[in-house]
C-alpha cells in the first residue's frame, strides 16, 4: 500500500511540474521574447484556457499527500512555514498577473501585471527547485517528527541547514532554467513567425545552461546525499533513469535544430519526469530524510495513513484520475493548434 501511494503521489507531482511547468516557463520568458503588446497577448493566450487546470494538480496532489501521508504533510508544511507562505503569495500574484492584465486598458497597468507574472513565475520555479533540493538533502527532524527551518543560514550543508544553502540554490537555478526551457519549447509549438523564432533561439541558449546545470547537479546531489546511489546500486536497472535524462536532453537539442517542435517539447516532458523520478528513486522509501540522524527519517511506513482510508482512497482516486484525464483530453483538443488573436475580438 505504501509503495503504491508513494508512486501515486509522485505521479501527481510529476503531472503538476510537467503541466504547470510550461505555463510557469512562459511567465519567465515572455518579457524577453514577446516584444509588442500583441505578442504578449499571444503568449498569455497560449496558456489562458489551461493554466488554471494545470495548477489544480498542485491542489489535488497536496490533498492526496495530506490524506495518504498525514505526518509528512504536517511536518513538511509547518517546517518550511515561511518558504511555503511565500509560495502561496507568489501563486496569488501569478494568477492576478495572468488574469487581470486584459482587464486594464491602461498601458502602465498592463506592464505592471506583466511584471507581476514574470517575477512570480521566476521565483516560483526557484522555490520549487529549492524545495525539492531541501527534501533530497534532508532537514533537521526532531524526535517528534517536526522541524522548523530558517530561510537562510551560512549557506553550507550540515546537520543544521537552512532552506537556502549552496545545494538548494543550485536546485533552484536548475528548476528556473528547466522550466524556462520547457516554456520556450511550448511557445515554439503554439506560436508562429517572430515570436516562434525568438522562442526557438531562447531554447538553444537555455539548453546549454540546462546541460551544464544537469551535469553539475549529479555530483552536488551526491555531496548533499551520499547514500543517494544505494537504491541504484541495489537495482542496476535503475541506472536507466539518468541515461534517459541525458537522452531526453539530447533529444531536445536535436529536435529543436530539426524544427520538430512537438518532439522537442515531448523530450522536455520526459526530462522533467525523469529528473523527478530519479530523485524519488534516490529517496525511496524515505519521504523526508533527516539531516542529523537517519533514525528520524520520515519514511513511508511511519507516515502512512490507516489501511481502510487507503483502500477506499484507491478506488475513488482511480475513478477521479480517469475523469481528470478525460477533461484534459477535451480541453487540450479544443484548444490545439497555433494561437492567434484574429478569432478573438477581445473586450471586457
Amino acid at each position, binding site marked *: 500500500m505504501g509503495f503504491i501511494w508513494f508512486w501515486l503521489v509522485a505521479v501527481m507531482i510529476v503531472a503538476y511540474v510537467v503541466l504547470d511547468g510550461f505555463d510557469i516557463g512562459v511567465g519567465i520568458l515572455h518579457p524577453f521574447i514577446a516584444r509588442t503588446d500583441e505578442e504578449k*497577448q499571444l503568449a*498569455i*493566450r497560449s496558456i*489562458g*484556457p489551461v*493554466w*488554471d*487546470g494545470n495548477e489544480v494538480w498542485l*491542489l*489535488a496532489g*497536496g*490533498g*492526496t499527500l*495530506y*490524506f495518504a*501521508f*498525514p*505526518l509528512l*504533510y*504536517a511536518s513538511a*508544511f*509547518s517546517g518550511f*512555514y*515561511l518558504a*511555503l*507562505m511565500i509560495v*502561496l*503569495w507568489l*501563486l*496569488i500574484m501569478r*494568477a*492576478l498577473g*495572468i*488574469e*487581470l*492584465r486584459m*482587464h486594464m486598458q491602461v498601458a502602465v497597468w498592463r506592464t505592471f501585471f506583466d511584471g507581476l507574472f514574470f517575477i512570480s513565475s521566476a521565483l516560483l520555479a526557484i522555490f520549487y527547485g529549492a524545495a525539492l533540493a531541501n527534501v533530497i538533502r534532508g532537514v533537521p527532524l526532531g524526535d517528534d517528527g*517536526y522541524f*522548523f527551518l530558517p530561510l537562510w543560514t551560512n549557506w553550507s550543508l550540515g546537520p543544521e541547514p537552512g532552506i537556502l544553502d549552496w545545494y538548494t540554490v543550485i536546485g533552484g537555478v536548475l528548476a528556473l532554467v528547466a522550466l524556462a526551457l520547457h516554456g520556450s519549447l511550448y511557445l515554439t509549438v503554439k506560436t508562429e513567425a517572430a515570436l516562434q523564432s525568438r522562442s526557438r533561439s531562447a531554447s538553444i541558449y537555455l539548453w546549454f545552461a540546462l546541460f551544464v546545470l544537469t551535469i553539475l547537479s549529479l555530483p552536488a546531489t551526491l555531496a548533499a546525499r551520499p547514500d543517494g546511489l544505494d537504491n541504484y546500486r541495489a537495482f542496476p536497472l535503475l541506472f536507466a533513469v539518468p541515461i534517459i535524462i541525458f537522452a531526453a536532453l539530447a533529444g531536445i537539442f536535436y529536435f529543436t535544430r530539426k524544427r520538430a517542435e512537438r518532439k522537442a517539447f515531448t523530450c522536455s516532458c520526459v526530462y522533467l519526469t525523469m529528473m523527478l523520478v530519479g530523485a524519488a528513486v534516490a529517496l525511496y522509501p524515505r519521504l523526508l530524510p533527516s539531516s542529523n540522524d537517519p533514525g528520524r527519517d520520515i519514511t513511508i511506513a511511519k507516515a502512512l*495513513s*490507516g489501511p*481502510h*482510508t487507503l483502500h*477506499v*482512497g484507491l478506488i*475513488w*482516486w482511480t475513478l*477521479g*484520475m480517469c475523469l*481528470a484525464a478525460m*477533461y*484534459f483530453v477535451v*480541453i487540450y483538443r*479544443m*484548444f490545439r493548434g497555433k494561437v492567434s488573436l484574429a*478569432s*478573438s*475580438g*477581445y473586450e*471586457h
Partner: protein
Amino acid sequence: MTALILHRIHFGFTITFHYLFPQLTMGLALLIVVLKTIALRKRDERYNQAARFWMRIFAINFLLGVVTGIPMEFQFGTNWSQFARVTGGVIGQPLAMEGVFSFFLESTFLGLFLFGEKRLSPLAHWASAFLVFVGSWISGFFIIVTNAWMQHPVAYRVLPNGAYEVTSFWGLLTNPWALIQYAHNMSGAVITGSFVMSAVGAFYVLENRFSEAGRIFLRVGVIAGLISCTTQIFPTGDIHGRYMAKHQPATVAGMEGLFHTQRGAGIVLMGQPDEEKQTIDNPLIVNNVLSFLIYGTTKAEVQGLDQVPRDQWPEPLPLLYYSYHIMAGLGTYFVLLMAISAFMLWRNQLFTTRWVLWPLMLSFPLPYIANTAGWMTAEIGRQPWVVYGLIRTSDGYSKYVSAANGLFTLLGFMGMYSVLSILFIVLVYQIIAKGPQLGASAPVSEPLTVA
C-alpha cells in the same frame, strides 16, 4: 498574543476572506444555469446575454475564490500541523476528493463555458454551465463533510499511533450533521447570489439604464431569493438548530446567551451578554420561545451554560452570541424583504416601486455578513475543540511555528487581501458600469484568459 490565538486568527481571517467569494460562486452558478435554461427553452437571446454578463462577474469572483482558496488547503499543514497529523486519515480524504472530483471539473468546464460559446452547440454550452455549477456544489459538499466531521465526528477509530482513521467511507460522507449543514449552507449561498443579482437589477432599473436586463435580473433574483431565504430558516435552519441542541448543548447555550438552565426558556432578541456576572444586559426576551423552538413545547427544559464545565465553554463567548444573533436577525429581514419584493413582482409593481427597489439595491452586502456570521457561529461554537469532544484546539496548532512567525504571515495576508479587495471592487464595478448588452448586435467575444 499567544501562538494559539494567532493561529486561530490566521485561519479565521483567511477563511473568512476566502468564503466571501465561493458563496457567490455557488449561488451565481445556480442562477446562471437558470438563465441559460430559460434561454434554451424559450429560445430567448436576452437570457443568454444576461448569462454572459453574469459570467463575467462570475469569472472574476471565481479567480478570487481560487487564489484565496489555495492557502486554505495548505494551512492545515502549516498552522495546524498537529491537528493535520492525527486527522489526515479522516478529513484528508474529503479534501483530496475536492481537488480530484471538483476542481478539475470546474476549471475545465469554466474554460469551455467562457471560451467555447462559438465552438459549442447551445446545448453543449448549457451543459458546460451546468457542470460548472455541479463542480462548485460538489466542492462545497466536500468542505462541509470536512467541517461536519470536526463538529460531529462519526465513523472513525483511533489507531495505535494516536491518529484517526475512517471506518466507514459512506458513514463519513453521510454524516447527518454534514447533510443538514450542507443544505443550510448552500441555501445561504443562493441567498448571496440572488441578493447580488437583485441589487444589480434594482440599480439598472432605478438608473433607467439597461433596464430590460435589470428586470430580468430582478425577476430571477427575487424568486430565487424568496425560495432560498425561506428554506434558510425553515426547514434547514430549524433542523440544524435542533440537531445542534442535541449534540452541542454548550454551543446552543452560548449562542442564545442562556447562562442558567431553565424550564420554559425565553429567547433573547437583544442584549449584551456579561460573561463575568453571567447575565444579559439590557435584555429583550420573549418568554418560552426557546424551549418551543428546540423541543416543540413551551415547558421543556433547556440546558444552560451552568451545566457545562467552565473550561468547556465556547470562547470567545460574546462573539459567538453576537454572530448568531446577527445571522438570525438578518435572516429574518431577508425573508421580509424578499416576501414583499415577490409580492410586488406578482402584482407587476416591483419595477416601479422605488421604496422596494432601494432596499433591494442596498442590501446586497448583508447576506455576506449573515453567511460570515453563520460560519462564525459554527466555528466559535465548536470551541474549545478543534474536533468536538476529541481534540482541543490548543492541542492542534503547529508548536514549532512561533507566534512571531504567525503574525508575520498574518500581516502579509492582510496586506495582500486588502489589495485583492480593491482590485475586485474596481473590476466588478467596471463590469457593472459597462452593463450587459442585450440584443443581437452584441458580439460574442472570446477572452484570452479565464477571468
